[in-house]
């Protein structure tokens, strides 16, 4: 996609405009690129026993060239917000014009039965059940709600084995969705 715009650029622009208002509670856009194809969001889960305030979760969403017909590439990442970028206004590293307070905490991958320790997420919406009617916003909300309704402080059963053999791109993995309880 070097040089040219995404074929659905207008849709990305609309989504970006709506997301950059940060109107979703607990979800903040932390980074985005010029082409509006790579985003990083910080997800907060409030009033949850398992996920504390000091733990910062960052979700990377990368739009592929088949979007929206194909799902974006989504995974948790360890992201350090206090990085001096070129277009920073203040040294705290916030990209938004209105002051977003960068919380103090430790960036982590959340512990969840469907989240592997390398950040890959086993979620039907990101694979089989993705439809073009879904959007970045719906993905964010689904993942936030997935964390919110969780009460098991454990990783997936095959976590260790998976992480050893896993490809970099979670879209290459064929997850088998079997668990409806979480």
């Amino acid at each position, binding site marked *: 996609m070097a040089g040219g*715009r995404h*074929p*659905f*650029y*207008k*849709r990305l622009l*609309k*989504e970006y405009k709506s997301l950059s208002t940060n109107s979703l509670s607990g979800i903040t856009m932390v980074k985005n690129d010029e082409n509006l194809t790579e985003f990083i969001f910080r997800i907060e889960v409030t009033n949850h026993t398992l996920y504390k305030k000091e733990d910062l979760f960052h979700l990377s969403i990368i739009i592929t060239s*088949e979007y*929206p*017909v*194909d799902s974006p590439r989504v995974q948790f990442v360890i992201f350090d917000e206090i990085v001096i970028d070129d277009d920073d206004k203040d040294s705290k590293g916030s990209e938004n014009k209105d002051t977003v307070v960068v919380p103090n905490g430790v960036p982590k991958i959340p512990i969840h039965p469907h989240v592997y320790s390398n950040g890959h997420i086993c979620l039907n919406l990101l694979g*089989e059940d993705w*439809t*073009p*009617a879904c959007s970045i916003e719906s993905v964010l909300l689904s993942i936030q709600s997935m964390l919110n309704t969780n009460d098991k402080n454990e990783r997936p059963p095959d976590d260790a084995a998976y992480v050893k053999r896993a490809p970099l791109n979670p879209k290459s993995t064929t997850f088998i969705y079997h668990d409806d309880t979480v």
Partner: protein
Amino acid sequence: MSELSSSNSSDGSESQSINDYDDSVEIKSYATSFDLLTSESRPDLRNTKYKSSTDHLNCPICQQPFMEPLTTICGHTFCKECIYECLKMAKSNQQSSGSDSLSGYCPLDRTPIDSANINDLFPTPLLISNLIDDLKVYCLNHERGCEWDGSRWELERHVLIDCGFTGVKCGGVRYENKNAVCQLLIERRFADENHGCSHQVFQCNFCNQELTKMTESDHLENECLFNYQTCELCSNDMIPLKNLSKHQENCSKIGMVKCPAHEIGCKWVGSNETSLEIHQQGNNCQLSHFLPYYHKINDKVDSLTEENRFLQKQINKILDSIVQGKITNLGYNESIEEINKFKTIEDQDKLLYLNFEIDRLKFEFNEKIMPFINKHTMNEQETVINNLTHDNFMMKEDLNLQRVLINSLRKQLQFLLFSRNSARTGAFGTGGMVGSMGAAPNVLLMDDVANELLEASSRSSSEERLNLKL
């Protein structure tokens, strides 16, 4: 040599500049702008900028107003391309070796959709398509400067044919190589009708700057220091166009006043309000009396051109629809192929216009002129004569009818009398009496016989006569 060339730049001097071409001037390309690279290229209407927001008319997949919408059995509408892409992706994900037709699930509610089944996926009602095609959009080339706006259905034609900012191949012949045709892209407004290469370098009329067609207007308006214009207010004629607007601002600040009729040509300039009043009083400024009428006429002309433009577009739209088979032959005598035979839009318009005029004139003629003509030539005597002949005819018919009745009654009478007489006298002379009836000479004969019979019978009994009612 060079002095000659500087005063008459369009010819170009013989020695050098006729062969100089500036290829460095490139057309500005934006993400939405359109270039006519081949005769088949079509603009991508996905990138159009809409004038107003379009909430419910957006496809859920691309978030833009629908392009060729299709509706699913579950009631959702998508662009044709969008839903096909979606079904293709679903098919490749499942890797099913199924039939050729695409099938999958509705993106909004996962209803199974089979594109081959016309009930599952069918064209959206034309009402929706028409509503969307009427949305107001800006030209695809608006970032290059095109200020056109109009309905979405007009956009393709505008960009392909009318827009001066569409990129086209220069197509100019360069003299250095007679067979070479310039293939560089330029905006259509710079293309030369005489097929000269627009990249040709010539000198500015006023200064020595080298220009091409593309850079010319920009130079004259913003750079050239020698294209002198005259300020109307202070008659200073050494002002380059670049500085003219500022100068006029200054002039009016000093207090130069123009007559309000200056747009129709009153050249009066004064220095304060009082002198303006004096100028307008009496018969000093005839043009200012005319000014309100001029404005009225101008407004009328503007609204008429506007209407005309709109009607022209409607006609184009209808013609396009006919060609695509959406509407049938509108009632004209020529078949659709005939109408389309005319290559240019102007000929088609003329033909339709002429046909319409003919129909209209025929109609008017029948409605208005014919009765008028008829009324004039008919006078009373003729009507009386006509009535009389009419009555005469009726009466003749009546007479004939009576004659026939009389004949038949006579027949009956004779038969009765004959049978009566033959019963009384036994024999009767004329054997031909009961012969043929109805022809005139026979009737006369019968009359005589009948008279005799009558007299015979009247002698016998008057009652019978009464009975016969003769």
